[in-house]
């Protein structure tokens, strides 16, 4: 079932037309990867899904993005609620300068999700378990999250998102700061998480997109050139531009 639908989406940074008439439909509980050369608009597209681009003054958007049958650009959209439902994981892990425990508890308190101390502790534990960090950190909940390895910190950031019960996880190059082993662990985690969440990942790493995604979109110069099952895109794409990019003849 389609969870996110972009229709005739155009985005401008001032006079620069960054997203050109993008139409796509993202299915729930699948991993969708957006690939393409630098500057093609893939991160811009990702950031429209939870209106992160609103933070840029010169941005102007036409068209619509429908999530759960609601246009997120509607005047009645509650941005905080949208960003809780559609969380973002960034390139570099960005834990708060707080303890491991407080990193997860923070969102729960802000959004008033956990009402009692027991509930809070239970949710923190579940969050860490869901990213396979509980066994490593259960005795270090009071230590600063800034002391974690990059992989642990990225997992913690994912746990922090999951704790506030989102439906969609946006991941912007989530492994670009990690070594190959940590990257493999995060990829395995993504494959586990898709059982419960819809994941949209932007990556420069085509191999990563091939390994983890169910559906893949190829973007070039602001346009979504092709969107299809990953298997199709990486074995027999319909568009020459896609084939040129994934075979290294372009980009």
């Amino acid at each position: 079932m389609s969870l996110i639908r972009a229709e005739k989406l155009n985005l401008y940074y001032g006079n620069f037309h960054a997203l050109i008439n993008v139409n796509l439909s993202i299915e729930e509980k699948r991993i969708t990867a957006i690939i393409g050369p630098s500057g093609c608009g893939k991160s811009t597209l990702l950031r429209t899904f939870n209106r992160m681009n609103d933070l840029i003054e010169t941005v102007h958007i036409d068209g619509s993005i429908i999530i759960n049958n609601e246009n997120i650009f509607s005047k009645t959209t509650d941005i905080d609620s949208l960003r809780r439902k559609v969380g973002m994981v960034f390139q570099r892990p960005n834990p708060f300068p707080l303890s491991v425990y407080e990193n997860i508890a923070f969102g729960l308190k802000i959004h008033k999700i956990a009402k009692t101390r027991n509930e809070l502790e239970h949710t923190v534990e579940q969050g860490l378990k869901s990213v396979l960090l509980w066994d490593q950190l259960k005795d270090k909940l009071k230590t600063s999250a800034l002391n974690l390895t990059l992989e642990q910190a990225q997992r913690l950031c994912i746990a922090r998102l999951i704790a506030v019960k989102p439906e969609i996880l946006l991941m912007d190059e989530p492994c670009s700061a990690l070594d190959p082993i940590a990257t493999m662990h995060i990829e395995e985690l993504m494959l586990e998480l898709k059982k419960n969440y819809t994941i949209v990942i932007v990556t420069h790493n085509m191999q990563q997109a091939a390994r983890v995604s169910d559906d893949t979109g190829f973007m070039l110069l602001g346009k979504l050139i092709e969107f299809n099952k990953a298997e199709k895109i990486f074995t027999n794409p319909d568009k020459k531009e896609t084939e040129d990019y994934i075979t290294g003849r372009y980009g």
Partner: protein
Amino acid sequence: MERHFDVELNKLRENLSDMAALVEGMIDNAIKALVERKEETLGNVFNDEVEVNKKHIEVDEICLKLLALHQPTAVDLRLITSAMKINSELERIGDQAVNISQNTTSLVKQPFFIQLPIIPQMTEITKSMVKDSIKAFITKDSDIAKNILLRDEKVDDLKREVFKKIINYIIENPAQTEYFIDLLLISRNIEKIADHTTNIAEDVIFMILGQDIRHHHLFDEHKT
């Protein structure tokens, strides 16, 4: 830590194992029809060939997908490239079983002249080679694979014995030439199956040990 990729590789192994079971059944049914001089079981061979051909395409698609999406390296790469070759060998074994069935169809229409017990004997060895080749692939056991290479020599010897006998029969009974040519072709088909199985064993050894032992006699000649 088990990788999701391993789950996909296990599916590939299961598919090849199913395909091997199908071709084994085809050989069984073809030879049963020959020994019992009954065509009934041959229908199964022709039906199973359709299934084997479907599996052939399916396994190739799985391999292509795994190569494209996972960019395997080292042992994973050797596993998938070996699986593609094993897939083709199994399909050809299925074709040989069909050839045996066609020759058997022709044979049972002719009056019975003689049985050659060597042919079922060749078949038993060959069937065990097919079974063991897939066992070696699934269990990653290079000793089982090496043992198959030895059995191929035995099958070759038996085929030569069949040829000698048949040539003598033809000389003594020229009116039965067609009958003997069918038997000759059947023994040739069985020997071909053993050859395909030997190829599988060589692929399995490459997959496990990373050693290419194909055409080793060529390299031995260069050394001397």
